């Protein structure tokens, strides 16, 4: 466990090396291929050893390792410290494990890109910050990772920066994340004010005696924290950056915008579970926003044509589920879904990467300029990419909630917990119902994606079709591993109902112990549990079968010839016009205020115009009066002099 510092340090080393290569000899791709994934695999190895130590020791309290005094000022004492506990151990395994697979995939996917070294430098840096985020032993150290991953997200979304839209998307992500970070900062101020500390151990041990359950302070703290979560994890109202973030290379979408960074908000709620348990109102807000987001994003996913946009809205929706889980107090279930989602969503994104890779190569061969990501240009790809097809179906069944795939267990646990909570707080029935409707939509849009991409006739083009091919093994290999995890990941937390021992829940119990007593007991009978499962599976099947019945891949035409959407479909295809709304209500007015009112109006008009240059005019006028006083009459000067002296004396004597 002593070696935990190596886990983040190795990717940092990778960043330094790859960054140096990127700036000095960007053509040295072999070295980059070794360093980039190499440091990740090494970090994964160290992480495994660390977690093995933790499992053997099984300490009640987190193991905190302090390296140096970072910000020591008076009562404020922030150390550069990492902490190993059950929660952070799960996270570092996901980050380095899934991260390694995605790095290996990238060797194939990005090989021909001229920014290869820069790509791996950024990717390594991202993993470093992500590990700081999950290992940090205090809110400020976590915040270093929190903003650091935002930076890397910005750099990687805009990786192909010479397209303005990509650079715009990166900037949008950073700014919207900053809105969330404002909440994180404000929460830290309140926490420090209330507890006099910012490190997890002190804050959480002081919390029960400091905050009365439901008190205003702890509610404010948790709501501010959740604002941070909404930014980072793309929840309403701050979700709009994530679909745009698909402008980045596909491995980035898999690693940052599906498996790891965007789940940081869920991790934060789980980390601060004691505070959220003390604030029932905030927890309800978390669950409510999560449920609403899950449903809302799922509706948009129904009408997207870009394969990555479908997956992006799907991610927003699935993150909503996780927040329903942690908002309900089912922290282990939320983290469980975080883990299984990391497996199947990474698989889906990397699979879509294989598809895009093939499409891109085909269009490249024939110099066509069609959209390689539009599903209307795909169809029938099963024949050309059989491995990708099979593996993506596994992931699709997993996300749809078909047993025994991983997603079934984790999603079912969240919905079960929400339903059970409904017994004491009926509003949770609404959240549960939202989740259920979102589940049927999920099954539907995922099946739609699979049908349009892999089934039916091919629409890529007659010449292009010949060049479609499966990806090389360096790309398919990681997919296979993720496929196995998506298939069997449910084993992490098999419920007692099916003979499991809820391993993850037990593993995390030291972290969530403090909040357990604060939450209302929510148990449902075994028969109810079986009913819920039956409902969930039925819902998933309805979605899948409904999609197969209703959709006609054969009737699709390539994107160029496709008719425009009509009616409600148009509203969904245009994402409920939320971007347009934000633009009209926030972006444009703020620009107008800054440019017209503040700069031209106040700065140049009032201050400079009336104030500065105005006073210059006044002094010129006074100067003119003064020059008229220069009469040359000595007597007049004497009178002025005497009056002046008298005034000064009077002032001095008073």
């Amino acid at each position, binding site marked *: 466990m002593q070696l935990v510092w190596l886990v983040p340090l190795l990717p940092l080393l990778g960043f330094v090396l790859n960054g140096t290569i990127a700036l000095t000899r960007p053509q040295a791709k072999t070295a980059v291929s070794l360093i980039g994934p190499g440091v990740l695999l090494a970090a994964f190895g160290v992480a495994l050893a660390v977690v093995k130590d933790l499992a053997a020791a099984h300490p009640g309290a987190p193991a905190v390792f302090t390296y140096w005094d970072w910000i020591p*000022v*008076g009562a404020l004492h922030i150390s550069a410290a990492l902490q190993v506990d059950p929660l952070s151990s799960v996270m570092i395994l996901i980050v380095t494990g899934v991260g390694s697979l995605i790095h290996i995939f990238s060797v194939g996917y990005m090989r021909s890109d001229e920014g290869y070294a820069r790509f791996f430098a950024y990717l390594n840096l991202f993993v470093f910050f992500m590990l700081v985020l999950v290992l940090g032993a205090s809110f400020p150290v976590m915040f270093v990772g929190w903003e*650091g991953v935002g930076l890397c997200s910005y750099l990687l979304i805009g990786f192909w920066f010479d397209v*303005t839209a990509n650079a715009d998307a990166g900037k949008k992500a950073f700014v919207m994340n900053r809105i969330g970070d404002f909440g994180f900062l404000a929460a830290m101020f309140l926490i420090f*004010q209330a507890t006099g500390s910012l490190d997890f151990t002190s804050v959480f041990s002081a919390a029960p005696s400091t905050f009365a359950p439901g008190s205003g302070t702890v509610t404010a703290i948790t709501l501010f924290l959740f604002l941070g979560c909404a930014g980072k994890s793309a929840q309403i109202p701050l979700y709009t950056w994530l679909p745009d973030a698909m402008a980045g290379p596909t491995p980035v979408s898999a690693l940052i915008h599906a498996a790891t960074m965007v789940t940081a908000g869920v991790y934060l709620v789980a980390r601060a579970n004691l505070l959220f348990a003390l604030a029932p109102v905030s927890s309800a807000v978390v669950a409510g926003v999560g449920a609403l987001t899950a449903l809302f994003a799922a509706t948009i996913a129904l009408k997207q044509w870009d394969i990555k946009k479908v997956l992006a809205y799907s991610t927003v929706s699935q993150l909503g589920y996780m927040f329903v889980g942690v908002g309900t107090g089912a922290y282990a279930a939320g983290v469980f879904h975080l883990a299984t989602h990391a497996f199947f969503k990474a698989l889906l994104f990397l699979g879509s990467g294989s598809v895009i890779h093939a499409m891109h190569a085909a269009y490249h061969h024939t110099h066509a300029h069609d959209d390689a990501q539009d599903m209307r240009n795909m169809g029938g790809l099963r024949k050309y990419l059989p491995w990708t097809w099979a593996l993506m179906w596994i992931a699709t069944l997993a996300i749809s909630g078909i047993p025994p795939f991983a997603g079934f267990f984790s999603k079912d646990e969240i919905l079960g917990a929400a339903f059970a909570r409904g017994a004491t707080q009926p509003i949770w029935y609404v959240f549960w119902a939202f989740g259920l409707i979102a589940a049927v939509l999920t099954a539907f849009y995922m099946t739609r994606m699979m049908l349009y991409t892999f089934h039916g006739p091919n629409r890529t083009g007659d010449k292009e079709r010949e060049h479609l091919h499966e990806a090389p093994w360096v790309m398919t290999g990681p997919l296979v591993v993720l496929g196995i995890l998506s298939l069997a990941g449910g084993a992490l937390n098999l419920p007692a109902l099916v003979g499991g021992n809820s391993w993850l829940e037990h593993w995390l119990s030291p972290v969530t112990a403090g909040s357990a007593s604060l939450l209302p007991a929510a148990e449902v009978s075994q028969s109810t549990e079986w009913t819920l499962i039956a409902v969930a599976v039925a819902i998933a099947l309805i979605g899948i079968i409904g999609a197969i019945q209703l959709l006609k891949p054969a009737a699709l035409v390539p994107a160029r010839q496709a008719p425009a959407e009509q009616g409600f479909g148009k509203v969904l295809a245009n994402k409920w016009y939320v971007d347009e709304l934000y633009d009209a209500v926030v972006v444009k007015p703020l620009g107008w205020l800054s440019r017209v009112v503040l700069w031209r109006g*106040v700065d140049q008009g009032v201050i400079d115009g009336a104030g500065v240059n105005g006073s210059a005019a006044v002094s010129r006028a006074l100067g003119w009066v003064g020059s008229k006083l220069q009469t040359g009459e000595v007597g007049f000067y004497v009178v002025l002099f005497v009056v002046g002296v008298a005034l000064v004396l009077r002032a001095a004597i008073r």
Partner: protein
Amino acid sequence: MNSFDVWVLPALLAWPLVGAALLYLAPASRAKVLALVVSLIEFGISVPLWWRFVPAGGMQFAVAWDWIPAWGIQFHVALDGISLFMVLLTTFLVPLSVLGSWTYITKRERGFYALLLVLTTGMLGVFVSLDLFLFYVMWEVMLIPMYFIIGIWGGDNRIYAAIKFFIYTFLGSLLMLVAILGLYLHAAKTTGQYSFDYDFLLQRSTDLGPVAFWFFAAFFLAFAIKVPMFPLHTWLPDAHVEAPTAGSVILAGVLLKMGTYGFLRFALPFFPQIAMSKTVVAVVVTLSVIGIIYGGLVAMVQPDFKKLVAYSSVAHLGFVMLGIWALTLQSVQGALLVMINHGISTGALFFLAGMLYERRHTRLLDAFGGLARVVPLLAAALTIVSLSSVGLPGTNGFVGEFLILIGAFKTYPVAAIISTTGVIVAAMYLLPALQKIIYNPLAKPENQKLLDLSPRELIVLLPLLAAIIWIGVYPRPFLSRMEPAAQHLIQTVTPATTAAAR
């Protein structure tokens, strides 16, 4: 006592003047080399201060020589944990400024570098003077060279900018002179002793009566113009845009800090009750918050890169003012740290703006685009500096702003929360600028053949980049050196605060 301790401050003040004279003895073509050597030696003289300085030692390295005994004027200089960093920041930035002007200044080089060195003496003098007359002299000494630097080596609109800068600052400093003389006369009237000595006048400033308010107002105006606080800031964008690179760097890096330094050294300790009275607090805190948000929003719509950075200075200095007035240990130390950070980061931004200007002869953001492809080193440097300026954790910018806000939250929670939105605004003005310069298509032919950073330019930027990371990751050596001074300030002002509250 070590002889270094006795001679260091007089040497720091005298050496640049000697150097300026040396410039006129050597051939004009050697001016910049000589100026570089002189400024490096100056920096070398100052470096041991870092180790010789005793954090808990109060005022140290003191020298007090009679200057005009008849009027009680002394050459009295010393350093504490506040001025230490201002001195080091100044001596650190001057050699970089010389190197940064290497190819930028092409006419009348000797005069330029000589003025820069005279300016150095003036700036250092402001930070170390413990005699109010000496302080005033130094304050004016630094004004003149800057006026010429902008007025002679500046851009197209340089005369307007130079005069605006001069009149604004001079107006403030005249009022300050009246207040200094008032303090002097008041002390003489009550004790019969004529002296401009800092400690003497400080002790005699407690029973001023109602006139204290006007003295405070005079000091306040002089310093608030310099900071600059909203709405006294409009000289700054003009001065920055017109000034040559070194002028902008020194202006932002050092001159603005004289305003906040003045508050810390004079306005607050001399008039604590007035400074902490309800009305003044309300005015200062409100103006600081306005500065943070307003500066950021106006920066956001600037087409000119240097103007953007200038308005961002208004925002950063707003943070400093908030930190000072919040008067908690965290906020005051945060304010001191932001004073340093702003010198480093904004200094670096102006260097980069100058490097871009030398390549393209424009500062308009829309003239650039896609530069990351042709000048990757410059793009990387600009990215890191911008991130420091938006306060990304891991860089210096974060530590300072975080300390100010967390400290200010104790005293003025609402103002602190509103100011925290400044971190969003900061991203909204710097990232679009970054995008317009280094990202987007490399469409303009003029941009396609630009040269990347030269070794000289790298040498200018690397120390600044190193400082950005150092203070971001390990700020402790800075914080521990300034803590006693910040503590002392708070203790001086706090009894008055509670009195004012009653």
